[in-house]
């Protein structure tokens, strides 16, 4: 799968776009809110998967870039009056730049050390969001004024929905192109073996740093998406539990595959909602159940749900 993906594979994205415009007229507000949340998480998960699933770098900094993207978009819009269509790419770029800066020293580290350093960075960033209250509003939070996209007012769930769907479709398409590109293959090679990759003439460090920066851009975009349908942000949104949730989504769905990341997002994103509506008395067990699911998945589905589906499909094919 080298080169650009065939156009047929882009067809589902068209469906996503159409759904984005049709569904707000059909669904209740609550479901649209859920949809918006899931689409935001999908972009976050796709970005994390680039770093973790494709380039094989175990880092925790993703949530910090998400925060940077959110605050940057909101502040550019509120303080400087920059329109959303410019503010969001700028914020994503800023996240990417900081990702690049973090990538340089971080890629000297490996495995556990990388995980710890980026974990510390994420916690430090959250501390800054809290302490820099002149800009971010500190723990009291920041009100987000509803952005307009090309004259189209968003800020509520039904109005944000089509824009969110369009951004998600764009990011999925970008991921398809990225993962089949030369850089994408280089990332896989680095993941499989840094030594073999280096021996085949791949710039290992450069590839890692690019993976860092690109993954940060995704998180920045997701931060921009946050401002489309939420009216308030505080540092709580960017805590450790969020990065754990994202990691779990990617691992449960299946590392290194676009459908895997999306399945993981849908499953773990909906789980608390399903529990809330159908098993109210069991809600207190949510944390426990979540831990059990994580443990069961790594024990019985090492390639995640999507990996299992692919394996089943291949087995059927060889039997036939």
């Amino acid at each position, binding site marked *: 799968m080298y080169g650009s993906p065939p156009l047929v594979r882009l067809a589902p994205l068209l469906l996503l776009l159409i759904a984005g415009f049709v569904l707000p007229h059909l669904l209740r507000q609550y479901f649209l809110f859920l949809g918006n949340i899931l689409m935001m998480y999908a972009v976050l998960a796709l970005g994390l998967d680039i770093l973790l699933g494709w380039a094989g770098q175990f880092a925790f900094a993703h949530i910090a870039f998400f925060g940077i993207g959110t605050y940057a978009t909101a502040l550019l819009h509120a303080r400087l009056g920059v329109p959303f269509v410019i503010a969001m790419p700028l914020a994503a770029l800023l996240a990417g730049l900081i990702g690049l800066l973090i990538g340089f020293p971080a890629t000297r580290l490996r495995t556990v050390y990388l995980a*710890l350093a980026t974990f510390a960075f994420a916690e430090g960033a959250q501390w800054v969001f809290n302490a820099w209250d002149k800009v971010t509003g500190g723990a009291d939070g920041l009100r987000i004024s509803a952005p307009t996209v090309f004259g189209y007012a968003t800020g509520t769930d039904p109005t944000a929905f089509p824009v969110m769907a369009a951004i998600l479709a764009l990011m999925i398409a970008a991921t398809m192109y990225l993962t089949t590109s030369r850089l994408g293959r280089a990332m896989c090679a680095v993941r499989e073996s*840094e030594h073999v990759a280096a021996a085949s003439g791949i710039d290992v460090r450069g590839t890692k740093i690019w993976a860092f920066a690109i993954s940060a851009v995704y998180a920045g975009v997701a931060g921009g998406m946050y401002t489309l349908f939420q009216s308030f942000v505080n540092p709580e949104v960017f805590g450790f539990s969020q990065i754990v949730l994202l990691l779990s989504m990617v691992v449960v769905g299946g590392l290194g595959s676009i459908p895997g990341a999306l399945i993981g997002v849908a499953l773990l994103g909906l789980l608390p909602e399903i529990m809330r509506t159908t098993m109210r008395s069991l809600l207190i067990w*949510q944390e426990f159940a979540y*831990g059990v699911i994580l443990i069961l998945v790594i024990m019985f589905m090492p390639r995640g749900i999507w990996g299992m589906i692919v394996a089943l499909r291949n087995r059927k094919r060889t039997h036939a």
Partner: protein
Amino acid sequence: MWPLVLQGVASGIVTGCVYALIAISLVIVYKSSDVINFAGGEMVMLGGYLGMFALLGLGLPYLFVFPFAALVIFAIGALFDRIVLTRTLRRAVPGQSVLVAMVIGTVGLSYVIKGAVRVVPYTEEVRRLPPISAGQPIFLGPVVLQHQDVAITLAAIVIMAALWAFFGFTIIGKALRATSQNPRAAALVGIPVRLMSMTAWGLAAALAGVAGVLLAPKLLLTPDSGIVVILALAAAIIGGFTSLPGCVAGGILLGVVQNMIGQFVSSRAISLAPFLVIMLVLLVRPQGLFAGRPTTKKV
């Protein structure tokens, strides 16, 4: 000014000793299975709650509370290794990092412990354990130490000495070290490697649990108390993440630095200190402050 510094150093040493115990627990796990135990903090928290249950629920004296908490959490750690990690390692997919799966496993365990503790009616209110030992405060020159601070420090030192003797002089301790250095060679000379991994996990878990009992009278115990693990991570990193004496030095250094920052910079900056320490040490001296040369494993 000077008495303040001395007082800060003394209190720093007390908390630092407990951080060191948790850090040692993390390092034992890391040395045995190359993974950070993200459930370490929850094991500490569970230790605190088990201590509370034994003290207030069963009415045991403190002397029996420690072995009780240690045994229960030893079992949890050993079983987690046996049931979850063994299976994960065996089913590992080539080319995909086993590390990610194992770390997710420990995160899963941390949620299981936290979730289970939250469900127990015992934890609805915030509680504090009675002091380990009551008595007159102890005056050392200008420094005042509470009676239980001295008890905590002594307990921590006794445990550290016991660990040193265990790893240095007992056959199991030596087998654990051999397994950590080279599992294949250890298996060849007849060391039951799987059993050693279980022992290491159990031991590390028990250590975290005991640290939890020691910390509980000083902290407010909530199901989210596991966050203390961040301080232990920082302590372990200062020590290079592979050396047990490094953990002790790192823990005490961190405890003292925290107190100094709290007294002379701002109380708000205390919570940032461990993260800054982690990042700085990893970027400047990943081998830790005390090691001579990098000890990163070559592939």
